[in-house]
């Protein structure tokens, strides 16, 4: 298959090919390296004029949807507005052009940002210490689990098991596995909370950690949290807080005060740094005192009026990444923290709750909202009944949403609710937007009954039509090649 619009097809070896200045000729320069170690394989590379490159990527951008395009109620992803000042500050060359091996004296601004951001996150989470190095949420989980592993190793305990609720995000069990643990799943009760009886059966001195998200992936605040904490802590099982859902309690409550021993944050969710179509993010890990010694890599310290990076002690798990942190991501989230200040954070979580609850109320007469007890910052709609009746799939519903100019909610997650949509509006959406979105969902529900083909054939108003995922997986074409 040839895609005429791919950059490789636009190449024409134009006379304005980009180049860098060299003084000698290619052959003489390459004489510095033995022939056998040289390549001659750049012929696949395009040589396109800058104007055509610009048009190419601008065209691509026009085939993409971001938060700045419109409402992006992707549950569990906290797609809030990404303030432009964050980007402006991070673009300052005095922050951007700094080599990680610069002398400490020359990077006092960088280190102060890291130090102060860490302090702020300590305050926000109620943890005793925060490490900024992980690159994303899953990386934070892994780091947290390494820490727990090291903690028990130091106590000379073998604890091979990690508990995760059946509603957990896939990264939780996967991280446990990558960290060399065995995963045991804890059931949810009928309402979606942790099933305490099941938990009681599964805890033991073999369990290193229970990983929770709170509110959980159904948007429910664990009603028996105190009990869970007690059950675990009685056996020294570490409680892990997956911060993907922190936005619900940001500024309202601190995971560190509710019993969690380890927490990771998703700066690219709760702290408004752009997700960029797949990262880079940052997944700082916070821990309670008893785990501080195990934190990874280096630490920013402030002594004698000077900031510096200090290698952590011998109990440290070691590094989890090259260099210190995803600095510009941390910087952006620190700009966000400084902007909002205590007043901003006092409203943030409440408005995230307001938006989710409001949207939930607008929809609950029409849809089966799986999270009945109480909605926090997101909620899950089950379309099981509708799908059964109409022979449509939840994906048909999701694709039809695209036709109305919105991004779809998260589809088929959490796994414990069948045919579900998970909706998270975040606090940066207006009442007007929520009203319109509710209207459209209700309209689509109507369409599913009166004209199900509309959904089946959707989307039609998008740059391309419904994508054939099966074909993609059956005959994988994973790079472009001219001859095929």
């Amino acid at each position, binding site marked *: 298959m040839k895609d005429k619009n791919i950059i490789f097809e636009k190449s024409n070896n134009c006379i304005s090919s980009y180049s860098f200045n060299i003084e000698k000729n290619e052959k003489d320069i390459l004489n510095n390296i033995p022939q056998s170690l040289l390549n001659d394989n750049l012929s696949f590379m395009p040589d396109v004029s800058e104007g055509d490159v610009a048009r190419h990527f601008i065209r691509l951008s026009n085939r993409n949807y971001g938060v700045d395009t419109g409402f992006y109620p992707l549950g569990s992803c906290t797609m809030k507005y990404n303030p432009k000042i964050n980007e402006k500050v991070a673009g300052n060359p005095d922050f951007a052009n700094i080599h990680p091996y610069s002398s400490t004296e020359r990077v006092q601004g960088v280190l102060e940002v890291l130090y102060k951001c860490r302090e702020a996150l300590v305050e926000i989470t109620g943890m005793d210490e925060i490490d900024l190095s992980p690159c994303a949420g899953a990386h934070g989980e892994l780091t947290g689990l390494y820490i727990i592993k090291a903690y028990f190793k130091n106590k000379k305990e073998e604890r091979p098991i990690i508990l995760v609720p059946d509603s957990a995000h896939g990264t939780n069990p996967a991280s446990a596995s990558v960290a060399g643990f065995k995963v045991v799943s804890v059931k949810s009760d009928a309402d979606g909370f942790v099933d305490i009886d099941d938990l009681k059966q599964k805890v033991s001195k073999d369990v290193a950690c229970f990983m929770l998200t709170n509110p959980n992936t159904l948007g429910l605040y664990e009603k028996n949290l105190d009990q869970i904490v007690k059950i675990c802590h009685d056996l020294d099982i570490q409680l892990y807080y997956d911060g993907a859902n922190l936005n619900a309690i940001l500024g309202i409550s601190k995971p560190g005060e509710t019993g969690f021993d380890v927490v990771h944050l998703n700066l690219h969710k709760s702290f408004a740094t752009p997700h960029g179509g797949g990262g880079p993010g940052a997944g700082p890990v916070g821990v309670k005192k008893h785990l501080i010694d195990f934190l990874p890599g280096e630490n920013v310290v402030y002594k004698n009026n000077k900031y510096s990076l200090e290698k952590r002690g011998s109990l440290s798990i070691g590094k989890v990444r*090259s260099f210190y942190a995803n600095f510009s991501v941390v910087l952006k989230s620190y700009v966000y923290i400084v*902007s*909002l200040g205590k007043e901003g954070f006092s409203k943030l979580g409440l408005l995230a709750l307001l938006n989710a609850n409001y949207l939930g109320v607008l929809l609950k007469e029409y849809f089966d909202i799986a999270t009945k007890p109480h909605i926090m910052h997101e909620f899950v709609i089950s379309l099981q009944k509708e799908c059964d009746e109409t022979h449509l799939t939840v994906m048909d519903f999701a694709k039809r949403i695209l036709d109305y100019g919105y991004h779809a909610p998260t589809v088929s997650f959490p796994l414990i609710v069948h045919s579900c949509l998970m909706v998270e509006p975040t606090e940066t959406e207006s009442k007007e937007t929520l009203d319109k979105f509710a209207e459209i969902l209700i309209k689509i529900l109507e369409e599913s009954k009166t004209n199900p083909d509309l959904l089946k054939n959707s989307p039609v108003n998008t740059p391309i039509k419904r994508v054939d995922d099966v074909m993609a997986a059956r005959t994988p074409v*994973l790079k472009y090649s001219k001859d095929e």
Partner: protein
Amino acid sequence: MTYFPHSETDIKEMLSVIGKKNLEELESPIPAKYIVKTLNLPSQKTELEVNQYFDKLANKNKNYSTILAGAGSYYHYIPSTVDELTGRQEFYTAYTPYQAEISQGTLQAIFEYQTYIANLTGMDVSNASMYDGGTALAEACVIAINSTRKNKILVDKYVNPEYLEVLKTYMGALKVEIVIFESNPFKLDVEAFKKIWNAEFCGFVVASPNFCGSVIDYTGIVDIVKKDKRLVIQSVSEAMSLSVLKTPGDMGADLACGEAQSFGMPLSFGGPYLGFLTCKKEHLRKMPGRIVGQTKDSDGNIVYTLTLTAREQHIRRELATSNICSNHGLCATRASVYLSTVGGKGLRTCGLANIEKSHYLYEEISKLAKFKVEKSQIFFNEFVVSTDIAYDKISKKLEENGILSFLPLAKFYSSLSNYYLICATEMTTKEEIDNLVAILGSL
């Protein structure tokens, strides 16, 4: 500066629809004892104040006027298109492209990235990015472990030490034993390799260019490893070298991994950078992370989508090939824009400029009485210098002159106590080189 679009009236109306008297009632699922009164943070600031605050912080950094250091973080030119085009909000503020019909921009940019990286490394498959060169190496080793079911890995001593530390962390948790191959910093000793190698290793990790900047010819060991059905993994911490060096694939590697920060990522104090991981076809099902594939839409147009997701955590959970979820996608898009802008000729001449500048620097330093270079070193843009002059003296002088250079290898290798790493790229001017050499000459 806050970003809440609600008016007071909106809030009232919404509360009344929900049936709550005030916002605080929404907190009710949270036990009252856990409700925070107010966070101990500074007060909200206006945008102007925020801007002034961070201008002040930025001014506390004192940038070098000359950077002649690499060591895994390379100072390369970033064409103006990169910020301008990647900065488009549609790329910036999108999530992972779950809804392909409105995400072709990200998807195609990543597909182009995969094509670039797979070809530049001479491999069949690239994933959609890893976090960085260190985690990419760790994930590559996980592939080797899983496909050979061996719990030992042989690693060249001169792999980037940052990566090696990451590898140790990852492997430690999996109880995989890392054996260091105590090789020569300038070339691979095949005889020594033969002595240490055995089929208990899942594979061998070689770095080229290695941390000393040396381009390593490891073709002599490929057959040895292959004979045992074990994997050769090449770690590349300077992706720019792929512009001129024989590809890992052509050298005989099964997996290539490394750092592509050089393709359009600013230095940014070490992150976010761009990990890459590529493999030969047979390892595809073991690849970690996102992969974009070509397919068709219902109109028959060629389009792109995330594919082979059955490897991934959201489907396979604890049985997934990796736990990675968000990767460094925007960095991959930056690399796409970078590579599309410079094109074949630009990438090639950039590589040549790196060789030319660094070898000029090498020649000039070799003329200095008190400094020595390694005659036999084959390098791309980074090389090793030794001297008996005390590090403090050199470092003080360079700092005074605003030059970042002469990274002491002693920090990483006790055996290289008077050795320094030094790097020149296409950014380096002749004046900067001559200036450095003059300063060194005066020591």
